């Protein structure tokens, strides 16, 4: 009863085949602070994870009505999370601090988010706090060129870990990091040589500050192949109802081309609204009491496929009468920061 509204954080670890997800987890989970973490994996890989709360889940996806891939419910995940919840509430396992879901290399993380947000029980007990994506410094460029799935994984990420930096040259690493920044300007990028990474750093919830990242890395609209990203702001407070109309309309018609929406929106209240969405799946927007920093402007990053930034800006401009503010690209003239 006393648990009230507290939800257990779920961290999604994704990354392309062989990009070092399990190695990274193996290192991080051995730290004492992570002992009350349950891990759900899709397959037991060659690198064994030695952890007492390890569960294997077989990917069972249930495609819903309109057949859109990102709006599928992962039944296997529902069952596994409900079982963990049951064990936790009966007190049969130590208090559950966190659940880590490791996806297969080919998985699209959107259905996992969708599953947690939509399930009538899970939505009250779990919340997705962050999506971690691993990228292999040696083969990362190749994966990004050839596999649209890996671009989706980067777009969905809140934090990106570049692994195997020990095996690639510093030039290659720098090039990859700047490419990642161009695809997803809102994500924080870390480097992990030999799969070593500080758990605190990786799993720390940056809260609203992480959503403000758009400002720090604001760059000109970027085009990487067919993926475009744009950081934008508004010249005043935005009508939240109107923004909801615009975004829900966009997601209905062009949802599969919108890989990511993330940022803070000034709605004319004391604090901003945190907007965070991966494809069709929007995190429950959080209305904050105050701004996380001094900058009180809206800042939103949109990562799209096929849709050009000019189209998005033009559309927001046309909706300006409803929104009550006009959009403008953020930080034009900046270059991609090289961390």
């Amino acid at each position: 009863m006393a648990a009230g509204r507290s939800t257990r954080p779920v961290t999604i670890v994704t990354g392309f085949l062989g990009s070092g997800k399990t190695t990274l987890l193996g290192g991080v989970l051995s730290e004492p602070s992570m002992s009350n973490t349950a891990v759900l994996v899709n397959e037991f890989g060659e690198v064994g994870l030695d952890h007492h709360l390890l569960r294997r889940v077989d990917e069972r996806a249930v495609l819903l009505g309109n057949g859109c891939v990102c709006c599928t419910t992962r039944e296997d995940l529902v069952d596994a999370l409900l079982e963990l919840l049951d064990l936790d509430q009966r007190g049969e396992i130590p208090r559950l601090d966190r659940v880590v879901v490791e996806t297969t290399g080919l998985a699209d993380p959107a259905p996992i988010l969708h599953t947690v947000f939509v399930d009538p029980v899970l939505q009250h007990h779990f919340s997705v706090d962050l999506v971690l994506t691993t990228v292999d410094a040696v083969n990362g460029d190749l994966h990004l060129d050839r596999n649209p799935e890996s671009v989706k994984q980067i777009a969905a990420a809140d934090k990106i870990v570049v692994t195997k930096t020990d095996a690639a040259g510093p030039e290659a690493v720098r090039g990859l990091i700047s490419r990642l920044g161009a695809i997803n300007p809102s994500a924080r990028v870390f480097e992990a040589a030999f799969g070593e990474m500080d758990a605190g750093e990786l799993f720390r919830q940056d809260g609203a500050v992480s959503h403000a990242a758009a400002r720090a890395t604001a760059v000109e609209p970027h085009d990487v192949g067919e993926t475009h990203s744009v950081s934008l702001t508004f010249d005043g407070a935005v009508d939240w109802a109107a923004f909801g109309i615009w975004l829900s309309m966009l997601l209905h018609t062009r949802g599969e081309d919108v890989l990511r929406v993330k940022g803070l929106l000034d709605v004319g209240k004391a604090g901003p609204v945190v907007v965070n969405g991966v494809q069709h799946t929007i995190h429950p927007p959080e209305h904050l009491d105050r701004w996380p920093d001094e900058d009180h402007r809206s800042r939103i990053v949109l990562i799209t496929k096929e849709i050009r930034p000019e189209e998005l800006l033009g559309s927001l401009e046309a909706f300006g009468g409803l929104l009550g503010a006009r959009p403008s690209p953020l930080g034009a003239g900046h270059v991609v920061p090289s961390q």
Partner: protein
Amino acid sequence: MCVLCGQDFVAQVHWTDRHLEDRARAAAPGSDPVAYQGDRRRDRAHRVVLTNEILCHYGLKLDDWGGSKYVIRDRKGRSEIVQDLGSLWPAAERLAGRALDPLDPTLRQVLADERALPVAGGG
């Protein structure tokens, strides 16, 4: 569906309604329900006005239905009941017979022209 009030139970709150839902849940027992309901009604009415500014270009119209649902109608008298913005757009697409795309250059042009020529008493 509840047989007494004809309302179905909504397990899934659309993200655009979340701020209202969260406030309702956060409200302490014994707090004034009327204040919250007033805001909720005002919010819904505001959303209907804004949505109609877009829907009118497709020959559609939205109304609030009893403060719990919305009804979308076309000019032939066909109508659908929708729960939230998530189910509104598919219904609008069915009634209009085409996709409602905010990136559509024609729609953008029409909206831009409207802004350039503010019509008195339009809202």
